[in-house]
């Protein structure tokens, strides 16, 4: 039997293995291209921030109208004690909500996968929760629940749906031939779920979690603002509301900056987890 050669050489590998004169030039080119890819976005961002600073200084804009970036950073450092505590509160809410949404979303998706009838009966509830704006639900929840729980429930509601719908889709998207194969070898429902449906659904599930991470933050912030207006809560969004009342705009910006950074951080972590889990096999994570 003639050996067939696998075609798995990624461009980077070529550059590394060749090492001699023709490869060196190409490798340099690749490194240069990557450097530009990293440096250019940073440069553009720095220019934008610099422009903001310049406009504020040149026009002498008052800090309670638009604070300069330098003032936002110094406020962040000055108020770090209060803000970091608020950050922890928001992070905690978000993490618990995301965890519950993952457990709930996956659990219900697995139940949906057992029967079309169950899926059809329960899916409308999930859709109603998804399409009803969370800003409208939050005040209602604050009536029934204490503010901490209400904020958690809000974050959960918005994070839950993408995980449920993506996982449901993933569990239903198994290769029918592979399902036949499992049937042929007498696999039961449970083994089919664990060995076949779950790995097939993994990329879909991870996509859902990535969306849910950002949404959990938004849900927590919206609920905190609703609760904050009622005089409760201590999360980052509450600090924004509070600073607004006191016309402490630099602190408002500092809290806003922290929320953005939190969102970016959560997204980066989830994207990394997704990449690590899929890089060996899924098209979305393969090196190109």
């Amino acid at each position, binding site marked *: *039997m*003639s*050996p*067939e050669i*696998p*075609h*798995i050489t990624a461009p980077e590998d070529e550059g590394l293995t060749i090492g001699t004169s023709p490869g060196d030039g190409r490798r340099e080119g690749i490194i240069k291209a990557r450097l530009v890819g990293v440096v250019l976005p940073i440069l553009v961002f720095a220019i934008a921030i610099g422009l903001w600073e310049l406009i504020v200084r040149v026009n002498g804009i008052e800090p309670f109208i638009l604070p300069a970036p330098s003032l936002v950073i110094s406020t962040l450092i000055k108020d770090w004690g209060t803000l970091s505590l608020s950050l922890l509160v928001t992070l905690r809410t978000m993490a618990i909500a995301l965890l519950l949404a993952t457990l709930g979303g996956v659990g219900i998706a697995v139940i949906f996968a057992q029967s079309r009838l169950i899926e059809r009966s329960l899916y409308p509830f999930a859709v109603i929760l998804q399409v009803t704006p969370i800003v409208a639900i939050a005040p209602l929840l604050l009536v029934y629940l204490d503010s901490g729980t209400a904020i958690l429930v809000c974050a959960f509601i918005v994070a839950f749906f993408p995980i449920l719908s993506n996982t449901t889709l993933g569990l239903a998207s198994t*290769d029918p*031939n*592979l399902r*036949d*194969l*499992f*049937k*042929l*070898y*007498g*696999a039961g429902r449970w*083994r089919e779920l664990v*060995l*076949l449906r779950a*790995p097939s659904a*993994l990329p879909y599930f991870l996509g859902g979690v990535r969306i849910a991470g950002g949404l959990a933050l938004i849900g927590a912030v919206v609920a905190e603002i609703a609760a904050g207006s009622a005089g409760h809560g201590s999360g980052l969004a509450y600090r924004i509301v509070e600073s607004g009342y006191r016309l402490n705009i630099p602190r408002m910006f500092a809290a806003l900056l922290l929320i953005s950074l939190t969102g970016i951080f959560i997204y980066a972590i989830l994207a990394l987890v997704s990449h690590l889990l899929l890089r*060996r*096999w*899924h098209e979305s994570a*393969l090196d190109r």
Partner: protein
Amino acid sequence: MSASALPSTRSAARKPDAVSRAAGEAVQKGAPLVTLLDVSKEFPNGVTALARLELCVRAGDFLSLLGPSGCGKSTALRLIAGLEPTTAGRIEWATGDAKLRPRIGFVFQEPTLMPWASVEMNVFLPLRLAGWSLRDARPRIEEALSLVGLPDFRKAMPRELSGGMKMRVSIARALVTRPSLLLMDEPFAALDEITRFKLNDDLMRLKQEMGCTVVFVTHSIYESAYLSTRIAVMAARPGRIIAEIDIDAALPREEHFRRESAYLQACANAADALHGAMDARDHL
């Protein structure tokens, strides 16, 4: 090759050496292994895929089901595998009971590998579902991969393999249980002709080494004439067998067989039967 039986229960799986000969292996060469009696299959959408099909698969056969698209040849294969129930008629196993049917290996038109699992874990699957541990199964996996010529690709991922190699892994997976009946649904249809010729030769050699019976679905007259000891020619609407052609030449065959009269005659007979069926339909 000695064929120790595949334990079908978890308790037996702990003793993989235990030889409990599976049903079907005792069937004498040439004796009926499975017989389709008056089998019909109608799908819920009203399409009659098969109408009153009569087919006998004998132990040791290399039987090709040859016909155009939509003639129900894949459906017939799925009925034999038990993947779908018949609408009417019976499928009789030599053992008398569908539950005691011989071990079956199935190869699909696509390689149908699990992309998240290595070659080894893909080939392991049938044994895993039968309750084997990876350690017990490893010699079997290595044997199956050697049979298809991929002994060094245990750790490779499916995406790293060419189309032909993926199909070899798929065949290794079907062989890992040492089946006595191998069902193949147009396994080489998506491959280029050169790879296909190579795999045809390998398949014949494999069949002889394993001593199994093969039912092979194809729409290629040449492929069926080259590989088979018998061709069942099928026609569509409704799916039925219109001719059976025996080819008396020992397996495995080699390239020069394509120039021998037995091969040419089989091709001519199969073509005549197919054209006859098409003409008959044109006159309807």
